[in-house]
């Protein structure tokens, strides 16, 4: 077996141990370690990706060479590698984008803790992506939750604490349900490895036994993960968590954490239950309905927001809605669209958060729209970046958002049942309009010059690109990434397709 | 293909445009002239106008009476040229238009001095003349429509000449009524274009029978719309309201030609549509004919009644126009040779008579500034010639034999009785008779009061001399209206020949 095949495992271990390592380092060093680790892992994932693409088939990596029923496995396919790569890139950029804010907002003794959390988060994400074992998945879900919570509350203020608590409660409920579902499956099949469970499930389907328990476990797991990834009715914690935690936390949370859960859900659908089984069960209808409602409601509450950060947070509620709607279509096309949106939304949303922070710099970190009037002139790059993100969110061609909109629409037209096609299309149109309303309103405000230089105590300041190199770099990269996704989406879509084929 | 037809069109138009431009730039550069310069300018203007007017009138008559000429100017659309052609009706119209126009023109040389803005007025006057000639020569429907609209636009400023607020309002009212009518006409034209073999005027109609059979309903509706539309110019109910508003405020020569000539273009348009495009056979006995007849009769009656109650002299004349034109329309609506004959006769006569009457009214205003009927007591003492010619004209209009009006009305009545139009056979003549009585009722009092004011009337102290330039054209017109009544045969024969070709 080739050396490359070890890399996934190594990357997980690496991130896992870089955490404790940074606990004994100072903030500065920890930062560099963390950045380095992420970069290295990104490189590894790239290698893995190229390897898997070249071989054209997924492979299994046994921990300590224990055979199937007992040992714990890692299973690497194209999709996993792609996700790992993108997560690394985006996480790195988020870290870079928020350096200054972190250093201001977190007291110095805690600086390195932050990086521990990030490392653990990365580790758990990678594990979620790669693992082939349901219980391992559960464990890492919990780790993920804990580290995410840490990221939220590390900036000390009432809001973040409250948000963290709410977040904990919600995700504990979710993981409780997930756990229960897993237990049911284990009870029914006697296995924990996804592939083995799938065989058993297939048998059960043919024999038709235990139909209801199987269904129950599917429902439990999907609902659990839906709750954790803040699908519409369960999003109460989200605006505060994203709106008041430090920038890179918000960016990472919104773009990666929830996506990890979603990806796990996809894996469960495809590799544990089998997608046709899921389709036959009515669970995806539920997801579909909640997804659409989420698309609309999220945008509506975003329109009512007066703080730019919270607005972006609400918009990601809407975006999560898109993704679940894609699941709900119940076709491979829909799934492809959702997965593409996972990526493009991750990129865009992180971009928006970082850009927003860049804008708020010009008004003494006030996130109120009134103070952002004309901010586009005060911080040019951030203004441009925000505009790009906004356009992509609205789905203007040549930005990534357009492609995912396109994929969703095509998928929905592909569905032959009117009951899904029309609602999807109409919902897409309406939510586009709503997005336009609140994002473009913001953009226009950004480019509305203000005569006076201060408003009730808040002094407007110019921000040059040089002042904050890391952020500028991150923004530029984000813009490039967004354009790349928008213009050269073909290969990525192809990869996703192959990955799904490997899954099934 | 000869351009003699174009000369009487373009000569006056260009001259008119030149004068308009001149007056406009005069205002823009806002140079104020000395008294005698002013005089010299007026002389020049009058001279130019007179020369151009006479020349073009002669040209027009030559063009008209030297055989069936025709000329295609250029193609407005692939199958629609701007095409002039002289035929019977056109010839007739051109003739009386030219005569009246020249006469009124000379009258207004004197009259306009107290109105001011003469350059503009005469410019418009010439322009409208050119357009009218073109309208009468027009050889197909679209050409006619083209000049019909132009006429509206060009004659509008004549109405608001004195620039007072009510004049402007009246002008706009005139414009919008005419536009409304014109567009109703256009509506019809669109449909006729689809269902006719050609839009070139051909006696007896060019309706494409095969197509028309299919969409009879919509076609009838379209024709009805056109009748009502062009009826607006001819002051037919329901679009007649502009006449009594526009005429009183316009300078008298303007109102003279307005109600003498321009309203006739509505009549011409109707003749063209009904007898040269749709063809009388298509309409005969349809609901459209009934509507048309009843509308015209209604207008006849209503017009004369309103005139009877109207104290302001020019308004009264305007109402009388409303009713008199509808005589013509009634004649046309009979769709018989007799009817058409009567209608054409009345067209000619009414042109002379009505312009004469308006010129009289103008004279009264010019000399003594009297606009209301009751002020005219004893006017006969001061302006005998004017009032005399007025009286003749009035008698002609009422239709006392042997004056001209009698003949035309006789023909109309005969036509009505001859036609096969149900109850209108007798209703028509009755209405005509009643309205004739009313006409007498509203025209003659002026004469009587004028000559025999009664002893209690305070004799007007200052007797001003009647101006030759004013009463002569008046006398000429009045005389014509008498003569044509006394020796009508040539005219009648000519008209009946035309009517014959149409059936």
């Amino acid at each position, binding site marked *: 077996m080739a050396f490359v095949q070890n890399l996934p495992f190594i990357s997980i271990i690496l991130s896992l141990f870089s955490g404790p390592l940074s606990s004994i380092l100072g903030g500065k060093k920890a930062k560099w370690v963390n950045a380095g680790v992420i970069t290295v892992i990104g490189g590894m994932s790239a290698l893995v990706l190229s390897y898997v693409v070249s071989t054209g088939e997924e492979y299994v990596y046994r921990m300590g060479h224990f055979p199937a029923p007992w040992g714990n496995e890692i299973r690497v396919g194209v999709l996993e590698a792609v996700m790992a790569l993108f997560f690394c890139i985006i996480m790195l950029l988020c870290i870079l984008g928020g350096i200054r804010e972190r250093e201001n907002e977190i007291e110095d003794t805690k600086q390195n803790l932050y990086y521990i959390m990030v490392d653990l988060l990365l580790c758990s994400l990678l594990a979620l992506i790669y693992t082939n074992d349901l219980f391992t998945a559960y464990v890492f879900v919990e780790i993920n939750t804990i580290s995410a919570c840490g990221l939220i509350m590390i900036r000390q203020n009432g809001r973040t604490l409250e948000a963290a608590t709410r977040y904990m409660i919600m995700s504990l409920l979710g993981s409780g349900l997930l756990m229960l579902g897993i237990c049911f499956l284990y009870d029914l099949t006697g296995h924990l490895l996804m592939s083995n469970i799938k065989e058993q499930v297939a048998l059960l389907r043919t024999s038709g036994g235990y139909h209801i328990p199987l269904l129950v476990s599917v429902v439990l797991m999907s609902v659990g993960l839906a709750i954790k990834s803040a699908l519409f009715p369960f999003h109460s914690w989200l605006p505060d968590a994203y709106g008041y935690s430090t920038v890179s936390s918000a960016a990472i949370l919104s773009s990666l954490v929830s996506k990890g859960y979603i990806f796990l859900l996809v894996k469960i659908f495809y590799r544990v239950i089998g997608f046709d089984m899921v389709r036959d069960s009515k669970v995806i209808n539920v997801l579909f309905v909640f997804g659409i409602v989420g698309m609309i409601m999220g945008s509506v509450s975003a329109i009512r927001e007066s703080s730019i950060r919270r607005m972006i947070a609400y918009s990601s509620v809407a975006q999560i809605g898109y993704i679940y709607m894609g699941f709900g279509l119940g076709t491979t096309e829909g799934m492809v669209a959702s997965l593409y949106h996972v990526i493009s939304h991750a990129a865009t949303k992180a971009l928006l958060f970082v850009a927003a922070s860049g804008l708020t710099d010009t008004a003494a970190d006030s996130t109120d729209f009134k103070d952002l009037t004309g901010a586009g002139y005060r911080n040019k790059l951030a203004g441009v970046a925000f505009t790009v993100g906004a356009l992509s969110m609205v789905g203007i061609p040549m930005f990534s958002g357009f492609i995912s909109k396109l994929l969703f629409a095509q998928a929905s037209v592909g569905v032959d049942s009117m009951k899904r096609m029309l609602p999807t299309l109409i919902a897409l149109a309406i939510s586009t309009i709503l997005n336009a309303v609140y994002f473009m309103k913001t953009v226009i405000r950004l480019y509305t010059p203000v005569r006076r230089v201060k408003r009730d105590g808040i002094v407007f300041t110019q921000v040059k690109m040089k002042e904050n190199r890391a952020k500028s770099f991150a923004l530029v990269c984000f813009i490039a990434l967004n354009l790349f996704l928008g213009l050269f989406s073909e290969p990525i879509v192809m990869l996703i397709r192959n990955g799904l084929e490997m899954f099934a | 293909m000869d351009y003699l037809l174009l000369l009487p069109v373009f000569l006056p138009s260009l001259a008119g445009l030149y004068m308009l431009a001149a007056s406009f730039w005069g205002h823009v550069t806002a140079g104020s002239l000395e008294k005698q310069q002013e005089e010299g300018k007026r002389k020049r203007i009058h001279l130019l106008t007179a020369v151009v007017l006479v020349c073009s009138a002669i040209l027009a008559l030559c063009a008209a009476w030297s055989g069936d000429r025709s000329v295609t100017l250029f193609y407005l659309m*692939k199958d629609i040229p701007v095409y002039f052609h002289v035929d019977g009706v056109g010839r007739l119209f051109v003739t009386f238009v030219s005569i009246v126009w020249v006469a009124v023109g000379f009258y207004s040389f004197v009259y306009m001095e107290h109105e001011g803005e003469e350059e503009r007025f005469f410019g418009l006057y010439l322009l409208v003349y050119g357009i009218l000639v073109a309208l009468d020569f027009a050889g197909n429907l679209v050409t006619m429509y083209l000049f019909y609209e132009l006429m509206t636009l060009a004659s509008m400023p004549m109405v608001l000449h004195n620039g007072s607020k009510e004049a402007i309002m009246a*002008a706009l009212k005139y414009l*919008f009524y005419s536009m409304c009518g014109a567009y109703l006409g256009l*509506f019809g034209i669109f449909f006729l274009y689809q269902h006719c073999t050609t839009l070139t005027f051909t006696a007896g109609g060019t309706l494409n029978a095969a197509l028309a059979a299919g969409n009879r309903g919509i076609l009838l509706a379209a024709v009805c719309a056109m009748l009502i539309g062009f009826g607006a110019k001819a002051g037919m109910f329901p679009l007649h309201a502009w006449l009594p508003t526009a005429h009183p405020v316009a300078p008298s020569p303007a109102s003279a030609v307005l109600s003498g000539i321009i309203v006739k273009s509505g009549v011409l348009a109707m003749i063209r549509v009904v007898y040269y495009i749709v063809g009388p056979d298509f309409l005969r006995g349809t609901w459209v004919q009934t509507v048309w007849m009843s509308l015209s009769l209604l207008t006849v009656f209503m017009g004369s009644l309103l005139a009877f109650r109207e104290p302001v002299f020019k308004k009264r004349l305007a109402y009388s126009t409303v009713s008199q034109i509808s005589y013509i329309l009634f004649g046309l609506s009979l769709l018989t040779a007799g009817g058409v004959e009567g209608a054409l006769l009345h067209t000619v006569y009414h042109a002379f008579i009505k312009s004469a009457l308006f010129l009289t009214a103008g004279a009264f205003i010019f000399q003594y500034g009297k606009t209301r009927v009751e002020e005219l007591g004893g006017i006969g003492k001061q302006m005998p010639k004017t009032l005399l010619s007025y009286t003749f004209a009035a008698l002609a209009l009422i239709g006392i034999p042997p004056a001209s009006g009698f003949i035309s009305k006789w023909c109309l009545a005969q036509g009505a009785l001859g036609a096969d139009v149900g109850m209108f056979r007798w209703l028509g003549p009755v209405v005509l008779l009643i309205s004739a009585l009313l006409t007498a009722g509203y025209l003659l009092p002026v004469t009587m009061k004028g000559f025999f004011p009664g002893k209690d009337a305070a004799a007007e102290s200052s007797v001003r001399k009647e101006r030759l330039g004013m009463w002569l054209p008046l006398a000429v017109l009045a005389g014509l209206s008498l003569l044509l009544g006394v020796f009508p045969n040539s005219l009648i024969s000519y008209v009946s020949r035309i009517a014959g070709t149409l059936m």
Partner: protein
Amino acid sequence: MSTYLLVIVVLLPMLAGALIPIIPFKTRTQMMIYIEGAVLLNSVLVISMLLMPPEGTLVLFRFTGNLSISFRLDGLGTVFAAVVSLLWPLATLYSFEYMKHEGHEKVFFMFYVITFGVTLGIALAEDILTMYFFYEMLTLVTLPLIMHTLSKEAIMASRTYLYYSLGGAAFAFIGMIFILTYGTTSVFVPGGVLDAARLGDKTNLILLIYVLCFCGFSVKAAMWPFSSWLPKAGVAPTPVTALLHAVAVVKAGAFTIMRVTYYSFGTDLLRGTWAQYTVMALVIFTIVYGCSRALKETHIKRRLAWSTVSNLSYILFGVTLMTPLGLVGALSHLVFHAVMKICSFFCAGAVIYKTGRNYVHELDGFGRKMPVVFVVFTVSGFALMGVPGLCGFISKWNLAKAAVASHNPLAYAGVAALLISALLTAIYMMTISVRAFFPGRDFDYGKLRGVEDPNWMMLLPLILFVIAMFAFGLHPQPVIAALESVAALMG
């Protein structure tokens, strides 16, 4: 002529525009020369290209699989491109003079020139995705032009414009998706590309989608109930209102509708269906509605904007007839209305520029003080009324001809609507002219001291437009023939 010209004429203005704020101009004149030069050059390129049409398509860029940004020159595109590239240089000339008193010109001209390229992009787009792409771009690049004055009003107007346009695009998007899915190809083919086999029993669905798509695109064409952004956008500087909101942007809306109707969905599918009646009813209503609003409006530019609303619906009416004749009518009005309306807007702009008066009742007696402007204005008014001899009559004639020929009862109503709106047009245009020329007997011209005609930069376009109006009105044959040849492809 090589197909590269197709993309050059699209990109050149964008590039030139983007450079404007970067290049350090010594004097204003230099900038003017640069801009006018760029625009003229591009127009010349376009015209030469139209004269020697390049064969084949040019694929600029591929999104995914069959989705690409590609250009091709065909009949319809030729018409639109010709109109745009003939008017743009004149409008630019005019705006040099006008923008003096508006401030930060560089930004203005930057977007003004870029818009040129984007509009051409719409005209030359080969497939529906490209068209959609440039349609969205158009929205974005014209936004700064509307909010140029940056007054509260302007900001509000630009917001409304943005919401309306993007919303419309969102629904147009649905239509595009269906074309991509159920069409044999995404390229525009005369007569439509829908694949009957794949369509199966979904006809009603497709009709519904067509209606959505029509409404979506008709937002830019300011059809009721999506029209209210246009009058609001009148706060923009007059060159913008004139060129964009009487020609480029709104005509782009009409143009895209022509594309989807005749080249994507196909008229054979739509003719005589409820879909056709629905859109036609909407359009007919708009024709009358726009005029009556114009009548009520006393702000000159807004009045003209409302009149634009109704005139655009003339074009759409021609489109919804769904016959080749209808297309001819629509195209002729697309061309002629461009001339008439830009002309009248420029007159209004001249008044505002010289005197800053905005309302109709402030114009008493201007006829003598600004003779050229108001004579031109009156002529354009006549043209809009459809006085024969001017171009307005020709397009009205063609539309009505098509409507009557289509033997469609609703179309007859449409003809009536055309004439009613013509009458209303007469009222709202003539009242202005009459005021201006006949202010009343006792009007004191002293009040208008200092009011005079603007300089040649503003007058030249006006004169040219008047000439054009007469030329088209008296000898429309060449144009109409060309349009007929375009429509002939529809079969």
